[in-house]
């Protein structure tokens, strides 16, 4: 499940303090490694901080597995963060009609599945219908779909229940894969997948799966890939689990891995400017939010929520994070349509004091006690919590910081007993497909029973606006963007949540790996086919 992806960061956070110490050591003792980085070797080895293949079913996979699946499977479209629209992939063109309630995709010809079967519109229909029917993972993204028409082998027509940007849905990093639903033959399809099989059209296919081993998954090139193998490409992709950042850094030094998913900022800096290595730092769509309890406790008063927004030294926090994060303007991160500049929170201690004093709190006023929860083991959230705590202490606000396992943190947030709920809920959010709607519908749409709206925020007008914005996204993106800008302004006024930062992906790789660009719509995914081995 989505929440599970917290573990990515949680594992990195393990013993971060000591890794820092080690970073200091490696920083001074780095010597040119005896083994030269294995350039020219056509194997790309990607180190990840936790297990890759949580599940194997392309219909239900909703965790780390997408990092490998995006190399085995393809979607109809792929989001392009530069142009902020989707590019063709398995579909070469598409049109929408009837105000975005009918979508017609023309399929690429000459595409074959890994078992040799040619892909037709019937396969597109069958895989999406199976994904919807299994109703697991992120299959909800197909919610608008009423029927799928595959009467022409090269054309798929989606009839929707309501207007929805289906070109974006089709580019999703989960649940949008097109696969051969008959690949398992007479066997049970789901069981067949779980044995470590794939049935995609992508450039790579499973070579070896070592369940639970450190070299967890090997992919090999699929010779009949529609994109062809002209030019330089990696022929193998290996996914290796390396929980410790210090270990990953040494493996990279020695050339045993080609790229590290994530190091600590300090370790990442040791590779900057070092010959033989390339580093990239790109803004992601993984946003850290502090959901404020608008329903009960002191934060039900909007003045106090505003005071919190002004009373925290945000730029000091960014410095402490050593480049692993950037301030987030509004809710929608840069690179995603709907993003607006100039909405970052600013530090103004005087304003915070005034607001608190108006409410009877603050220096010289009543003492206030707030509870903050975050996911245990997440070093970044831990740091952010302690900085918020020390800033609030200056305002005569005592912050109780509680680190909980995710299920416990979530259960507390959903508690029906209002007195048991937290005041501040630290929470990462990123969309399941390239649509700002994800933040609004999940966290700020009114809910009778809180699910992810853990601010307990209810604003009927905003509810109406967000639904209008989503349906306009299917027909008039400019109008939709204007509504998203307006809603982000509303949220700054009501302040049900603090947009703390958007994470920066800091990758380090051998300089023999060229052509890497980050695509924040596919978190932590490396499209290995697009890389060029050199040297």
């Amino acid at each position, binding site marked *: 499940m989505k929440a599970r992806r917290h573990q990515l960061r949680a594992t990195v956070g393990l013993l971060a303090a000591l890794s820092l110490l080690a970073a200091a050591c490696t920083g001074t003792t780095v010597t040119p490694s005896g083994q030269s980085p294995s350039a020219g070797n056509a194997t790309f080895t990607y180190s990840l901080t936790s297990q890759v293949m949580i599940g194997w079913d392309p219909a239900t996979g909703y965790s780390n597995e997408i990092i490998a699946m995006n190399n085995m499977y393809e979607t109809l479209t792929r989001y392009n963060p530069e142009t902020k629209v989707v590019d063709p992939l398995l579909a070469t063109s598409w049109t929408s009609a009837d105000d975005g309630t009918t979508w017609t995709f023309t399929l690429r010809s000459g595409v074959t599945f890994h078992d040799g079967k040619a892909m037709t519109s019937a396969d597109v229909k069958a895989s999406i219908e199976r994904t919807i029917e299994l109703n697991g993972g992120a299959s909800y993204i197909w919610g608008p779909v009423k029927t799928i028409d595959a009467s022409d082998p090269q054309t798929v027509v989606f009839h929707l229940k309501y207007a929805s940007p289906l070109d974006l849905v089709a580019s999703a990093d989960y649940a949008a894969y097109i696969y051969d639903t008959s690949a398992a033959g007479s066997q049970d399809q789901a069981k067949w997948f*779980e044995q470590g099989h794939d049935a995609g059209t992508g450039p790579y296919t499973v070579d070896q799966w070592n369940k*639970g081993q450190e070299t967890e998954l090997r992919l090999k090139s699929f010779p009949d890939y529609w994109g062809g193998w002209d030019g330089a490409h990696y022929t193998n992709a290996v996914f290796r689990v390396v*929980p410790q950042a210090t270990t990953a850094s040494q493996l990279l030094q020695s050339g045993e891995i080609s790229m590290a998913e994530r190091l600590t900022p300090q370790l990442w800096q040791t590779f900057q400017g070092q010959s033989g290595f390339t580093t990239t730092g790109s803004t992601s769509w993984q946003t850290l939010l502090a959901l404020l309890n608008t329903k009960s406790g002191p934060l039900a008063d909007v003045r106090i929520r505003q005071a919190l927004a002004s009373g925290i030294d945000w730029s000091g926090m960014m410095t402490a994070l050593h480049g692993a994060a950037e301030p987030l303007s509004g809710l929608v991160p840069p690179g995603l349509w709907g993003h607006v500049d100039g909405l970052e929170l600013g530090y103004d201690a005087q304003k915070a004091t005034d607001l608190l004093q108006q409410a009877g709190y603050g220096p010289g006023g009543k003492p206030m006690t707030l509870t903050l929860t975050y996911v245990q083991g997440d070093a970044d959230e831990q740091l952010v919590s302690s900085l918020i705590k020390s800033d609030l202490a200056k305002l005569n606000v005592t912050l109780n910081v509680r680190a909980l396992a995710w299920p416990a943190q979530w259960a507390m947030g959903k508690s029906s007993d209002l007195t048991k709920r937290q005041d501040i809920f630290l929470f990462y959010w990123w969309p399941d497909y390239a649509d700002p709607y994800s933040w609004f519908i999940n966290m700020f749409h009114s809910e009778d029973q809180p699910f992810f709206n853990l601010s307990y925020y209810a604003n009927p007008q905003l509810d109406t606006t967000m639904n209008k914005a989503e349906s306009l996204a299917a027909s008039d993106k400019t109008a939709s963007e204007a509504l998203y800008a307006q809603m982000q302004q509303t949220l700054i006024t009501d302040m049900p949540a603090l947009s703390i930062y958007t994470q920066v992906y800091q990758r380090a790789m051998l300089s023999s790996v060229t052509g890497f660009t980050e695509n924040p719509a596919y978190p932590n995914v490396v499209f290995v086919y697009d890389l060029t081995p050199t040297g």
Partner: protein
Amino acid sequence: MTRYLLRRIALAVLVVVGVVVLTFVIARVVPGDPAASWAGPHASQQEIDRVRHDLGLDLPLPAQIARYFSGVVRGDWGTSIHTHRAVLSDLMTRAPSTIELVAVALLLALVLAIPLGLVSARWSGRLPDGAIRVGAVLSVSMPAFWLALILQLLFFQRWHLLPVAGQYDPNLDYTHPLVQYTRMPVVDALITGNWAVLRSALSHLVLPAIVIASYPLGVITRMVRASELDSLGEDHIRAVRAIGFRERAVLGRFALKPALVPVVSVVALVFAYALVNTFLVESIFDWSGLGSYAADSISSLDTPAIVGVTLFIAIVYVVANLVVDLVQAWIDPRIAVT
């Protein structure tokens, strides 16, 4: 002896059951709904209820525990909430690596500690004794994490002598594929005669084994020394000396055997410690054993997996203690009588 054995086994079973019940209760008291985790964030209430029923989570706690034990006996250790895979099969893929590592580390510790302890006792109060005692304190107090990083820095980065992490060179999978029987790379390489993998696996084993051996080495050395000195003060040793046996025979043949009784029980204790210590060391050396599995399952509150790991370790621990008790009884038959 049979009665003694039966009594020990009965106690051992009781300990295992107790541990499982305790873990079960603790895991259930912690907030969080396993059924909701299983069904995923977009599941409807009916679906969550269905999962709750399927997983038996709607039963009262004692019934759940009873259901769990009847499953354990039949080889069904439950299904992981997180991976939706059978816990027992997950454990069976992870455990061998950990056991291989701990076994090698303990063997290393024993092989070094017994002679060191003897030397220390032989020259008690003199220079070798002093040096060994300082060394023992150091090896006990060195934090495993720190030692691991230092070793990686020296042996890998500085001197390029040993690999930094992993169980063997993954590139050998292409040139010398390893057939897995036991899932312990060293053992599998040995029985299949895969010398390339064996060489690689052994060199990968050195550093983590040293780190895990560090604590047991210090403790056992000190225990051997103390207990040997005790034993040297006993009457029968004076008699042996009076007869005119050489010092070496006195130390080794006559004093060592009784001195080993307390040493063996310390080994059982440090075994448990090493097993848990492995969890940390595994993550540093990229060793895919029980440790990473336990860490994953705890952070996702994956109850069946947590209980499974706990049960497994309890069983290993209890069996190890049982073996130790039997070894002690064999060394000193008086133990079985009491």
